[in-house]
Every structure is written in C-alpha cells, then in structure tokens.
C-alpha cells in the first residue's frame, strides 16, 4: 500500500466558495477572524437550502404525497450524514436540536431532572462555555445536587489532579466538559475525563460545539455518553444543531420538549413516546436547516477534517509567532499543537472593545468580550480578552493584517 501524503487545503481557493468575501468592509477586504463564534457559509450549502425550498419543501414524516416524501428523504438523509460525521453507531441516536446549547439543555433537563438529587455532584470545568456551565448549575440547583468545577492552570489546561478531591465531595453523576475551549482554543483530554467519569459511575457529556468544525470526531473512540454540536459553526446554517446520545440512555430517559411527532399514542390520562430519535424532536423541526447541515458535512468531508485541523494548527502557530512581537502582549492558552485555531490575548492599556472597533475600520473582524466564559475570565484576572479565530478560509495574509492593525491600535490609544 502506498503511503498517502495528507493533502493540504488551499484556503485561497476555498475562499471563492464564500460569497461573504466578495464585499469590502470600510473599503477593505473582509478579514473574518471570528469563526469561533460562527462560521461563514459556502455557496454549496446556501444552494442546497435554496434548492430544497424551491423544489422539495414540505413537512416531514407526515404526508404520503411527493413533496412530503422528498422533504423527509432530505431531512433524514442529512441526519445520516451528520450521524456518520461523529461516527455514531446508529442514526437513531442523532437528535436534531436548535444548537449545541439546546442539546446540552436537553440532557440537563431530560436526564438531570430524573437522575440528580441531594448528595449527587455535577462537574464542569472553569474553561466551560456558559452553555455547558449554567444548565448544569441550574438543574443541580433545582434537584438539590451540588455543582463543582475542575480548575485550570495558567496555561488554560485542566488540572486533573483535582479530580480526586471532587470525587470525595459526593456521588459524581455527570461530568460535562468541552472538547475544545472556545475562549482559549485548548484541546482538552476528554478520553481521560471520560474514563474518570465512568469510574465514578457518572455519565460523560461532551460539548463539541467548538471541536466539531475543526477536528475529526468519533463518539465511539471518545467513549462518551452524549455529544453536542452546532451547525452554524461548521459552515452550516443557523437554527440547527445536534445531540448524539448513547441509545440505552436515550431510551431510558424522559422526553424533553413535548408535542407533535414525539408521541406514540395520546390519551387523556397517558401518553406514550415515539421511538428514537423522534421521542426528542417535538413539533416541526428545522427542516431546511437540517438539509443545509447535511450539505455542510458534505462540504467539510470533501476538504477533510484532518486537513482543516492541520491548517488551523499552522495558522495558530503563525499567529502566535507574529503576535508575540507586540510589546507587552499576553497570549492566553497552550502551545499551538495543543490548541485549535483560536488565539485570545490582552494588550495592557488597550481595551478589547477599542481594539476590535479600530480593527473593524480596517475590515478586520475579531471578537472582544468574555466569550461566554465569565468564570474563566475571572480566573485569568481580566474582564475580557480580544480573540482572533480561524477557519478553513483563513489565509496567513489576514494574520499579517491583524498584527499590523494591532500596532495601529497601540499607536492610537497606547
């Protein structure tokens, strides 16, 4: 067998797929360096949705006529693609949600309300996004369980030594953690956490919102119990996301949203639930969005997740290297080989809002804020950071423009 060299992606070429780059912002080409918050969309995905609406739109699972069949085939065909994308053992374990946030809430409510109580512990980390922090805090509060966080070190990496202490504080019933941190880019050791969770008899919930766009996912290799992600961060439309869940757990769980489609038989005194995955999909779902989600998966697979991951590592290394030259800059997070294409930083005396605003006038879009990680910001001792994040369409020239722009910011406000 010949050894294949991993094909690199050609970001310059891929950019042509994205209509958003055809415009100028403040007279400058758009340098979109905020892909961690949401990604831009290729024509292939937009065309797939438009075409679906124009030729095949109808409600799913409900009609015997042609349009409804086409719509159902499009919707379920996309489910098969999304399920395969995370190597789910069965597409019945793949539930469509609005977003990663809703996917996590589904587990927190439907599993948590029945399985947490006094003496139990729900564990997240200091690195977690509010969407994987607040649901567990809230449901723990409602059920009387306690809520604990895994601390991080100064590099933004989890301190796994602290796990024993957490285990001694009660029955750990659920561990929920992000695979890639949106604030720092840290790639977390989920396999180790999962092994620990299972030793405690706890379930492992993986927030893969930030991982799914950037690295190949395999729920069977991760051995986790639930995995949540969003279409909009991975070239797909807004309004749809997914939860993968282990079948035995999903089957035992109560439902979350109630309504049409998730039922089997409705009586005045009793209602029974539909089979998986429909039990968790009440009401009319995001139909065309699911089709777009499937098209986004096709698009990413065509490029290759390995190639995307490598491209991001290279950009992260390049950016950290270039940005380190800025006087006084503090770059948060681990070295490039342990992070996705995300660089969060602070320049003393320059507020992130001002940096982002001034960069915008050069057509450069970066994020300024707490990135939905207030506990982490407190841990880092800052109110907010400036963050540049990259994706398959990011080119090194944009990083050069960012560095130049930051020099300009310093001259103006420093």
């Amino acid at each position, binding site marked *: 067998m010949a050894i294949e060299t991993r094909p690199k992606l050609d970001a310059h070429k891929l950019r042509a797929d994205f209509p958003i780059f055809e415009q100028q912002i403040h007279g400058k080409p758009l340098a979109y360096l905020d892909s961690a918050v949401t990604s831009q969309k290729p024509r292939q995905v937009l065309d797939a949705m438009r075409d679906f609406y124009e030729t095949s739109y109808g409600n799913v*699972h*409900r*009609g*015997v006529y042609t349009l*409804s*069949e086409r719509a*159902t*085939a499009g*919707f*379920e*065909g996309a*489910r*098969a693609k999304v399920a395969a994308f995370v190597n789910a053992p*069965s*597409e*019945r374990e793949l539930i469509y949600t609005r977003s990663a946030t809703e996917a996590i809430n589904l587990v927190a409510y439907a599993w948590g309300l029945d399985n947490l109580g006094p003496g139990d512990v729900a564990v997240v980390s200091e690195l977690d996004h509010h969407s994987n922090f607040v649901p567990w805090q809230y449901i723990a509060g409602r059920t009387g369980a306690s809520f604990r966080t895994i601390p991080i070190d100064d590099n933004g990496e989890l301190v796994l030594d602290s796990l024993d202490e957490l285990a001694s504080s009660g029955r750990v019933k659920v561990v929920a953690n992000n695979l890639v941190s949106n604030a720092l880019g840290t790639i977390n050791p989920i396999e180790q956490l999962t092994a620990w969770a299972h030793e405690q008899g706890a379930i492992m919930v993986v927030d893969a919102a930030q991982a799914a766009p950037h690295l190949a996912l395999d729920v069977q290799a991760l051995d986790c119990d639930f995995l949540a992600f969003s279409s909009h961060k991975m070239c797909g439309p807004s309004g749809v996301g997914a939860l993968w869940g282990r079948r035995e757990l999903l089957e035992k769980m109560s439902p979350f949203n109630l309504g049409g489609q998730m*039922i*089997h*038989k409705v009586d005045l005194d009793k209602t029974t639930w*539909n*089979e*998986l995955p429909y039990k968790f999909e009440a009401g009319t779902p995001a139909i065309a969005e699911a089709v777009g989600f499937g098209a986004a998966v096709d698009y990413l697979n065509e490029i290759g997740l390995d190639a995307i991951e490598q491209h991001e590592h290279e950009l992260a290394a390049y950016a950290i290297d270039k940005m380190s030259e800025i006087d006084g800059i503090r770059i948060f997070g681990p070295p490039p080989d342990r992070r996705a294409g995300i660089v969060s930083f602070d320049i003393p005396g320059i507020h992130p809002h001002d940096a982002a605003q001034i960069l915008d006038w050069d057509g450069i879009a970066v994020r300024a804020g707490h990135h939905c990680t207030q506990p982490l910001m407190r841990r880092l001792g800052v109110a907010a950071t400036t963050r540049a994040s990259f994706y398959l369409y990011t080119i090194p020239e944009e990083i050069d423009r960012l560095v130049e722009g930051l020099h300009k910011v310093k001259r103006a406000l420093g």
Partner: protein
Amino acid sequence: MNEFDQLYREVILDHYKNPRGHGVMEDADADAEGMNPLCGDEVTIYVRFGEDSDTIDEVKFSGRGCAISQAATSMLTEMVQGKKASEVAVLDKDELLDEIGIPLTPIRLKCAMLGLTTLKVALHKAKGTPLPQGLAGYDDLELS
C-alpha cells in the same frame, strides 16, 4: 403500467376488498395489537397452533387500515399458514415485500409492515421469548 396500476394492482385490490382471514378469533393461542402511529390504524392478530403447539394452524386479523396494510396483512395470513412459529418469528420482511410485489415509499412501508410486526409480537409473547430489537421498533424500520 401507470403508478396507480402499479401500487393498487389487481391482487392488492383483491386482497383489500376480500381480505383472507379477516375476523376475530375466540380463544386464540397467541394474539397482539399493533398501531401505526402515523394514521392511528390499529390491527389485532390472532393465531391458533396445531397439535404440536408450534405449527401455525390459522391466523386471523381484525382492525382497520388502508388498502396496503389490509392487503399486506391478508397476504400474510396465507403466507404463514402451516409454518412453524419459530420460523415466522424471524421471518425476513423482504419475504412479505416480495409477495406484495410493488415498490413502496418509506411511509407506505410502515403500512405494509403493520401486520407482520404485530404477528411477530404475538408469537414472541405466546412463546415467552424476548422481543428482538427490531420489534421494539428499533432497527428494522428504516428512517426516512
């Protein structure tokens, strides 16, 4: 052959209009009820075994349904007559589909399978064997 003739071909219409084995069976050896949640159609299947308590002597069904589900169940009652319960409990759905002999969209497939699924449940219940995954509605129903 146009689509109407294809789906509602003579033999289907014949089974629909003159269903074999239609009716209630008193003191059946095995029975079960099934429902198609899409349209609320319900069917009850009754089985009487032969002397060996295993060979299927007679199958009857009652309930309401569309032409496809009624005809498919009617055909089924003829197909399984004289077979062993253990064989029928694992009967491949394609055998019934071959008999029906028309192309079915995924949604109509559920109509066609209602009788067979219910019959299998009746047999497993009577024999005390655990319901296979497929019958809990898991793997053998295609998504889409």
